[in-house]
């Protein structure tokens, strides 16, 4: 390889202008790919982080209630006018057992059973509809670390204490230590003490959630001993789908992953990733054509020199490698320059951009870009390199 390396680098150095121009082209392409990928990755991580900051990765609920239709004898036909059943609030059967099963799954990091149902919150003559959340405080904190989002008081439920969202507190004019009357319709009705106020930054939650002790919520909702939902978090958020399916199989309950609940979001993220990948692909393809055309021109320009080298004892394989190596060097050097430039762009974005989020740049992305560009360089060089290898030395030497 020594000779190939020597010839390749000398050829590149001799064709300085060509080399510099194509290098700039490759560098621009690579920096666009690096910056765009980093930007989109950062953006998506940020969106997912925000979304999952306030919800469980998987929600396990009792299966939907459906009408039982008597199976028909063969050959008969039946017209059914079916009244769909209302999905009343009901407990997961044997939820303690389900909870223990989930606890034992290796992919699962936290499990939190809770009872959740609708109610009215009243203060004086003001009425607000709220969602009662009867939780096991310790377990729930592992799903949503709400303790970090308190704006007043403390996160403390049980013994008549409740924690409410900041918008609800505003709507009802409540402060820590104030009393609040909760009415769940089923005859349950009690007065709780506001122990703390949280703000998650999601309007729906801040204006509706009322956290209570599980026992108190059960009695308010008229479902003693019940849990209507089990919240679950998993290690790999993108495996939530498969884990949810597994949970359904294992427990017979309905399990919905965050990906299903946020179908819209997932779609948006997927199309975003797809378009990023398409842009990267097309940039890479045009860079590849750039390398191929520069090397093709170079083979024509150097036809006579290739002929002389062959007459001096260089083999076809050596000539092939000389040009493949030039392609690889284009890719490698271009991607090092382009990767650095892309890194610079990310840094500028983080330092002077809109500052909505930070783009992290993983060294892995740079490494991948470098390897990919080098491989692309070799592939693009394949056609010109074959042309060079196939040149007939006699014809090549006569070439002027």
């Amino acid at each position, binding site marked *: *390889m*020594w*000779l190939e390396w*020597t*010839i390749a680098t*000398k*050829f590149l*150095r*001799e064709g300085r202008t060509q080399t510099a121009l194509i290098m700039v082209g490759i560098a621009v392409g690579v920096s666009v790919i690096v910056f765009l990928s980093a930007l989109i990755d950062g953006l998506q991580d940020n969106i997912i982080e925000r979304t999952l900051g306030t919800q469980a990765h998987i929600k396990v609920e009792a299966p939907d209630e459906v009408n039982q239709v008597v199976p028909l004898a063969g050959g008969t036909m039946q017209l059914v006018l079916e009244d769909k059943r209302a999905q009343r609030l009901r407990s997961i059967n044997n939820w303690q057992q389900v909870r223990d099963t989930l606890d034992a799954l290796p992919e699962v990091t936290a499990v939190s059973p809770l009872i959740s149902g609708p109610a009215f919150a009243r203060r004086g003559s003001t009425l607000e509809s709220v969602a009662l959340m009867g939780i096991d405080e310790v377990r729930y904190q592992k799903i949503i670390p709400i303790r970090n989002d308190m704006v007043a008081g403390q996160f403390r439920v049980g013994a008549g204490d409740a924690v409410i969202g900041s918008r609800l507190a505003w709507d009802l004019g409540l402060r820590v230590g104030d009393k609040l009357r909760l009415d769940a319709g089923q005859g349950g009705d009690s007065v709780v003490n506001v122990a703390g106020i949280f703000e998650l930054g999601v309007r729906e939650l801040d204006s509706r959630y009322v956290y209570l002790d599980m026992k108190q919520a059960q009695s308010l909702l008229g479902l003693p001993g019940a849990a209507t939902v089990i919240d679950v978090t998993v290690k790999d958020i993108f495996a939530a789908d498969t884990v949810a399916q597994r949970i359904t199989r294992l427990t017979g309950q309905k399990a919905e992953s965050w990906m299903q609940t946020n179908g819209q979001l997932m779609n948006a993220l997927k199309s975003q990733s797809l378009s990023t990948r398409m842009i990267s692909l097309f940039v890479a393809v045009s860079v590849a054509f750039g390398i191929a055309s520069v090397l093709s021109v170079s083979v024509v320009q150097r036809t*006579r*020199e290739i002929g*002389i*080298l*062959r*007459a*001096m*004892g*260089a*083999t*076809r*394989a*050596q000539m092939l490698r000389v040009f493949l190596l030039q392609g690889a060097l284009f890719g490698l050097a271009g991607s090092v320059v382009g990767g650095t430039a892309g890194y610079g762009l990310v840094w500028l974005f983080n330092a002077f951009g809109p500052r909505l989020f930070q783009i992290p740049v993983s060294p892995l992305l740079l490494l991948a870009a470098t390897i990919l560009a080098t491989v692309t360089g070799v592939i693009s060089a394949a056609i010109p390199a074959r042309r060079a290898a196939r040149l*007939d*030395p*006699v014809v090549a*030497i006569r070439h002027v």
Partner: protein
Amino acid sequence: MSEPSQEVLRLQGLRKSYNVGMPTEVEVLHGIDLRLARNDFTALVGASGSGKSTLLNVIGLLDPPTAGELYLLGEPTRGMDDASRTALRGGAIGFVFQFHHLIQAFTALENVLMPLMAARGKPRREDIDTAQALMAEVGLDKLADRKPDQLSGGQQQRVAIARALITRPALLLADEPTGNLDSRTAADVFALFRRFNRKFGCAVLLVTHDSRLSDACDRTLTLADGLIVSDQAARQSAGS
């Protein structure tokens, strides 16, 4: 020094056609028989288009013959693959072309080393010494680090001769090596061939249109329309 009668090259009924299988097929060499011995210093002359370059390229294993047999150092070369042809050519043959064909990206010394680098990679210390000695022999030791375009035509041709000799070939082929040099420079370059023929005992086959040069050779082959029509020894042996 080896025995003078030792055979370097033998051609038997050698034929060469271009564009084989096409309507434009044309036979350029019509059956050449030829023997070259070590120490032979031979001129190849003939009208333009008679097939001199073609014959040289075939002998130099750059172009395979269409028929006949070519023995190089006693080895038959029919049906050799590219790699072994390249290896045999690299070891046995040195080439000098009309247009001093040096490679611009390399210095004069690196050009001289090229056949060795092609065969075995990075040159060793003693290879570089050999190349420098050859550069000194052609009178260019001071210009070893220059690029070809910083040398005159005659100087470039001397570098090409040094390059052809670096592998100590048994046969040196030269296709109009003095074709675009003035007559004084041409005489200098010719003298170099003479000197290396004596010093290294390599056979020289030299194409030229210059009758003064061909007269100074030991033997003159005349090619006409793809056949050797005369093979004459020089009037007085230049070797004595």
